[in-house]
């Protein structure tokens, strides 16, 4: 074999390896898209198809923020309950004790000194009640305010969903580019994206992404669009 023939064979082998390698890569990407789709479905979010607006490195920080906010909210709530509970317990114990004492006095011959002592105890208790009630109210307000995590984390979760959906779209694009001719790609993309409202009105949808977690579960077009994504993955054997 001449040098030229050897070089030609090597070039063919290299090209074959590259093709085989890219098939493997495409296969893995396909499986990844399928996994992503199943994960999104498992989360019940498969109908929330929206354009990604964020970048991957942001996701860790956002997830961490959600974890921190929910943990803090739980702590604030439990701590407030821990502080309020003894106040309520004490008022319950003291009022029950006084009620029992008054009941006993009404049922037996009355000793004036005993009545006076009980009246003084009752007076002290009543004077103490407003302060205890205010303290309990402060803790109840703390519990209410601890719920602000819901609004804030909701917005972050929304952004994360945009991110996940965006990654899914990019992988789908890659899959379409790898398996179909240039002529076919356009119609395939139209089939997938237009029905899922991911194309022409992307800008409008972007604006709506600022609105918090609004998932339209009734939109026929959304469901149809997602079915198209599943069909494509089935078609490609993933």
């Amino acid at each position, binding site marked *: 074999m001449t040098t030229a023939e050897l070089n030609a064979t090597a070039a063919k082998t290299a090209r074959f390896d590259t093709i085989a390698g890219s098939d493997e890569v495409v296969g893995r990407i396909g499986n990844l898209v399928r996994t992503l789709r199943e994960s999104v479905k498992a989360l019940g979010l498969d109908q929330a198809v929206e354009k990604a607006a964020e970048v991957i490195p942001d996701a860790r920080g956002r997830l961490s923020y959600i974890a921190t906010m929910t943990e803090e909210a739980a702590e604030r709530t439990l701590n407030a309950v821990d502080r309020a509970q003894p106040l309520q317990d004490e008022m319950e114990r003291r009022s029950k004790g006084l009620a029992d004492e008054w009941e006993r006095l009404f049922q037996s011959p009355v000793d004036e000194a005993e009545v006076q002592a009980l009246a003084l105890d009752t007076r002290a208790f009543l004077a103490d009640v407003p302060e205890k009630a205010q303290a309990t109210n402060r803790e109840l*307000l703390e519990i209410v305010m601890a*719920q*602000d995590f819901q*609004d*804030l984390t909701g917005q972050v979760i929304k952004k994360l969903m945009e991110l996940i959906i965006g990654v899914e779209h990019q992988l789908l694009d890659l899959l379409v580019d790898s398996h179909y001719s240039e002529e076919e790609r356009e119609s395939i993309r139209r089939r997938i994206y237009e029905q899922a409202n991911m194309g022409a009105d992307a800008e409008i949808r972007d604006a*709506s992404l600022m*609105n*918090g977690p609004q998932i339209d579960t009734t939109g026929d077009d959304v469901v149809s669009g997602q079915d198209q994504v599943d069909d494509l993955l089935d078609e490609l054997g993933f």
Partner: protein
Amino acid sequence: MARILVVDDSVTLRHMVAHVLRKDGHEIVEAACAEDALTQLPDFVPELVLTDMYMPGLDGICLAEHLRAMPGYRSIPILVLSTDSSPDVKQRGRGSGVTGWISKPFDPVMLQGIVQKVLH
């Protein structure tokens, strides 16, 4: 004591704000979006509107624009409660008649103080 319209698509936030303001004796009506708020206006005439910025449909600033265009709403205080306090969006708010901006998460005492301030 005043009649206050609270507009927010987050039911949790609406309830939080309503809880805090009711403690001061205010009468609160809640709306889940700007459109909902506008439809409630003939029956409930607020002395103050406290609105979220980003909601489905019209945002808080658009709601302010709509209100300012209506007779009887040109001078009532409109406060926006939002996580977004960028200068651009605040500028847009000022241009549309927003009275003030409150950042989320809000402090209940501060909210009560601001409401008292704009009502007097």
